[in-house]
């Protein structure tokens, strides 16, 4: 809160600058308040009194508070843009000629297709794909993540971003974006809000607000002759005060701040949306396509079970499997050791004279040769069978069963020291399987309660996919998925009227990313993928899709809630102002003064002050967004109607009364 106050104080000059009618014209509601401020000021100069001057002053403050909300929202982005700009220093690029010669040119003069050399310590001069070499890159300027990442030519990790720094090695980069249109440029424009366009939903809401404004304008304008007929002609100042209190100033003042803050929340979770439209679409998504690996499961498979061959004890299989894996530093190997320990194996180190036998594509086995001549091996069933020359039927059945369930079977075999020419023993099978990340099932259940289906995309066969899908609790899966399959799935969903969101990083994901309503490209992915999607996740964390959906929903909820609050507020303002205007002509109307406001002047001024202050009070909510909890639409609506509808009815009665208690002590209020 105190930081918000600091920000507000800091942005005050900007808020004053925004009083420019050419700026306010974009919001008809606030423009009308501006006109009202001018009109009441003129009237107050002609007939100065505490009442008229106060009304004029508070109307100016109303406009100013709205501007302040927008300025504070924009200010947050500007700070970020400044730090991004720092990364875009005047870089010198080493342009690589066709003959292999290097020439130094300014980064701003690079054209698409140029090839540049970047070595350890250099800043990458522009966006591009690595065509040669491998390097570790510090991307903290963009992602804020200090750990360096590996980028290499070919494949889906080939993209580098201008403004990042190469830490080791030498790469050749082919430039893919012209100066001024780089990712960094786009990002700066986005967080600054300079390229912000009003989103479809915001436009629809603006239309509603404009029509409400017109209705109230008609009501107040025609009230003038009606009041004259009633023998109670009204001053312009009073009529303007009534109009400003009635038109939806609360939401009108905060609307653009809500939009800017929504984009800002995305930036804070390190997602860049290329358009506000995409953020809104995220709230509407009803199908999420999620890659299995890395999103739903950990990236690698882990040992989950030992199945001993006939005549072999569980303990023997466990200990041998551990032995075979002790020197194996792959995640799979380590998971075998962990499982064996968990099942009670001794925590002994490998004898110092043992020899590690690495996995090769030829043998398709790995293991250990002990000094006494004992050999243990771990590998695919067929590889161990080939090595030993035999494989028991029971083991073969177990292998098939595990494969059918979607696991990966590894067979353990041993040739004993005393029997070098013998056929050895098949000890049993280790089951490796994908491990579903913790908490995923709960998150999917949450999504389901919000009406969002999750679909798992995997290259696994249907059996494997089904087993993992069941465990993770996704609603559907797409097995052995090719890019074409993904595309077809998206189109099928969209034909049914559903909005689809997906993540992707590879070039072959690009068409699907472009087709999806919300396509989130991983920052680590290729330039093509980033170009095709409408959002980029700087952390390259596919689970973030779920956060994006929530931010999209929150944006709409905040707008709806403040609109409801704004309209509900009017009821109390009528009860304050109408009796004040007409109590002289129709004393019976004093019975509408349910708040017992002191005098007509104090009642009207109190309503105007409340109207202005409520904008300030709601700035934090507009910036933070209404809290979103996953629940069914009916439950969410019930809660929000209660808080913002009913609250909007009641709060102003209390607020106006309290303000009146203060205001009525002013001189000239009767």
């Amino acid at each position, binding site marked *: 809160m105190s930081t918000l106050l600091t920000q507000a104080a800091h942005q005050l000059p900007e808020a004053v600058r925004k009083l420019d009618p050419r700026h306010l014209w974009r919001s008809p509601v606030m423009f009308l308040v501006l006109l009202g401020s001018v009109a009441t000021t003129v009237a107050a100069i002609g007939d100065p009194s505490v009442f008229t001057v106060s009304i004029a002053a508070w109307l100016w403050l109303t406009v100013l508070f709205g501007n302040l909300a927008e300025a504070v929202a924009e200010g947050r982005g500007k700070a970020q843009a400044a730090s991004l700009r720092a990364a875009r220093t005047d870089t010198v690029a080493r342009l690589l000629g066709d003959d292999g010669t290097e020439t130094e040119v300014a980064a701003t003069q690079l054209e698409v297709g140029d090839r540049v050399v970047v070595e350890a310590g250099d800043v990458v001069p522009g966006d591009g794909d690595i065509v040669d070499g491998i390097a570790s890159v510090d991307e903290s300027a963009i992602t804020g993540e200090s750990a360096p990442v590996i980028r290499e030519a070919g494949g889906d990790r080939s993209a580098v971003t201008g403004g990042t720094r190469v830490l080791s090695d030498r790469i050749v980069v082919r430039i893919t974006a012209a100066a001024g249109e780089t990712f960094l440029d786009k990002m700066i424009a986005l967080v600054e809000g300079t390229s912000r366009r009003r989103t479809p939903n915001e436009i629809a809401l603006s239309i509603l607000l404009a029509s409400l404004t017109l209705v109230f304008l008609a009501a107040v304008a025609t*009230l003038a*002759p009606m009041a004259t007929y009633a023998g109670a002609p009204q001053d312009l100042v009073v009529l303007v005060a009534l109009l400003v209190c009635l038109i939806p100033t609360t939401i009108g003042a905060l609307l653009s701040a809500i939009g800017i803050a929504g984009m800002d929340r995305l930036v804070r979770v390190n997602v860049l949306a290329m358009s506000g439209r995409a953020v809104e679409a995220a*709230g509407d998504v009803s199908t999420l396509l999620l890659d299995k690996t890395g999103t739903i499961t950990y990236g690698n498979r882990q040992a989950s079970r030992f199945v001993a061959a006939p005549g072999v004890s569980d303990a023997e299989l466990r200990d041998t499997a551990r032995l075979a894996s002790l020197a194996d530093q792959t995640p799979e190997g380590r998971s075998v050791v962990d499982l064996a320990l968990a099942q009670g194996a001794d925590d002994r180190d490998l004898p110092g004279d043992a020899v590690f036998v690495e996995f090769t594509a030829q043998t398709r086995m790995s293991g250990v040769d002990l000094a006494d001549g004992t050999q243990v091996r771990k590998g695919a069933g067929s590889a161990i069978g080939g090595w030993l020359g035999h494989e028991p039927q029971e083991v073969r059945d177990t292998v098939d069963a595990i494969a059918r369930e979607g696991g990966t079977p590894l067979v353990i075999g041993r040739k004993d020291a005393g029997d070098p020419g013998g056929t050895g023993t098949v000890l049993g099978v280790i089951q490796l399987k994908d491990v579903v990340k913790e908490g995923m099932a709960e998150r999917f259940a949450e999504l389901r309660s919000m009406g969002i289906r999750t679909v798992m995309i995997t290259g696994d066969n249907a059996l494997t996919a089904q087993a993992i899908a069941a465990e993770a609790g996704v609603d559907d899966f797409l097995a052995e998925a090719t890019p074409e399959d993904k595309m077809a799935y998206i189109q099928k969903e969209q034909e049914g*009227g559903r909005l689809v969101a997906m993540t992707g990083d590879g070039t072959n994901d690009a068409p699907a990313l472009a087709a999806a309503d919300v396509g989130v490209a991983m920052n680590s992915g290729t330039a093509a993928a980033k170009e095709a999607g409408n959002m980029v996740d700087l952390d390259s964390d596919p689970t973030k899709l779920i956060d994006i959906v929530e931010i999209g929903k929150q944006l709409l909820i905040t707008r*709806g809630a403040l609109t409801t609050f704004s309209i509900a507020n009017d009821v109390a303002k009528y009860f304050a102002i109408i009796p004040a205007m007409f109590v002289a002509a129709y004393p019976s109307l004093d019975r509408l003064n349910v708040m017992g406001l002191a005098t007509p002047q104090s009642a009207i001024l109190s309503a105007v002050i409340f109207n202005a202050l409520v904008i300030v009070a709601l700035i934090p909510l507009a910036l933070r967004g209404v809290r979103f909890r996953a629940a069914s639409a009916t439950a969410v609506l019930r809660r929000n109607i209660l808080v913002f509808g009913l609250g909007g009815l009641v709060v102003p009665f209390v607020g106006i009364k309290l303000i009146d208690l203060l205001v009525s002590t002013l001189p000239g209020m009767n």
Partner: protein
Amino acid sequence: MTDTLGGLVTIALLIVLLAAAYVPLGDYMARVFTSTRHLRVERGVYRLTGVDPDAEQGARSYATSVVGFSLVGIVGLMALLVGQAALPMDRGLPGMPWWMSFNTAVSFVTNTNWQSYAGESTLGFTAQMAGLAVQNFLSAAVGMAIAVALIRGFVRARSGTLGNFWVDLTRATLRILLPLSVVAALLLLAGGVVQSFADTTVQTLAGHPQVLTGGPVASQEAIKELGNNGGGFFNANSAHPFENPTALTNFLEVFLILVLPVALTRTLGTMLGHRRQGVAVLGVMTILWSVSLAVTTWAEVGAHSAAGRAAGAAMEGKETRFGEWASALFAVATTGTSTGAVNASHDSLTPAGGGTVLVNMMLGEIVPGGVGAGIYGILVMAILAVFVAGLMVGRTPELLGKKISARQMTYVALYTLTTPALVLVGTGTAIARSDTAEAMGNPGGHGFSEVLYAYTSAANNNGSAFGGLTVTSDFLQITLALAMLLGRLVPIVLVLLLAGSLAEQGKVPATAGTLPTHTPLFVGMLVGVIVIMTGLTYFPALALGPIAEALA
């Protein structure tokens, strides 16, 4: 039986009969508008008029047909009224003055039936039957056609068309309004409503001869109530013993007023393939109607006015044959629908009662609304409610599988703007003129209510008069006619454009994230939106009229 018991039994019986008609009539109407077969008589009509009944119309074409049909209707009716002296059975009456005939023609074509003349002393039988009665049928049929076109907008997906206006119009007239009117007319006739072409001369007690005007009243009375028209054959409307002789005919007339608007909510549910949606819409109407009836009855029966307290009952301006209970019921039914027939003088209702029937019209004729107009009116309000509610659940708002985006909101915003603007600007302009005060029947707040009521009734196409106000000045004739015309055609065109934009969309499947619009929660929300929107729009004006009076 006490008045209270009698009143309550009447209301209960009315509800039972409406409930009995709900399913069969509602489903019958749904079949009428979805059937692919044409009756022989209809094929004859299409051949005569050169209409291809199987050609579909898009929104623009449908709207052009409606507007063209209405304008031609106005010109034709004006010709009949101005030139009635040349027509047979003119009863020797002269032609209507120009502005009065313009006002009357607009009034009957727009289903308003605002009457700035006295029927028995102004119009001959031919003008009544060939002019006004024909428009009574057609204007009600137009309302149904618009409602059906909007429903089709929700039902159809990726379609450029909304049906055929001429077919909808013909079917609504021939298959629904005409047969029901015949039955209703016979019942009214049996109940004592007159039907003749002769005047009767009687000797009064004082010995003077008095001519009692007869006429084809029963046949006109049936469609007057059934089609929510409300234009009386006689100046006294349903307070006249020839139009409404007994408590039984009074009950029948209230039933006729309500039966089509109520049953059309079933038609809505059936055509949508979502019956509970129809019930929810009826629920919204019922809640508002019940509150309105309770307040009006409380105000009238309890005699909550200075004069009423003095007399012990608020009987001024009411028919002694019916009493306060039946007057309150009739007043609520006639203003909640777009009927405008009256069996008591609304000018004489207590301030609270008169204010409530005024608010009934301000709600936008949706409790339960005019024939067809109630359906499209409440669906537009539902879109408004769903827009705000939809935002509050975090999705682009959608109603019945259709997304509500900027284009739809534009039509809805203009729709909700039109009537209030006409009412407020009309009243404001009229009240600013010095000659308006002279036309008022009362000074002060009550006089203001008379003017406000007139423009509210006209712009909402209700047609009932508060009374008191003399509305024959050129200014009032013309501005009220414009309020009626714009209050009818502008919303209709907007509804059709809205329907067209909905039909073009695909259908969004419902998920747990979709806001259901048939639940009590949404019904409550819709009631709230309607009440708050109406209240905010009209509160200042109401405060200077009925509220100031009622609190005095």
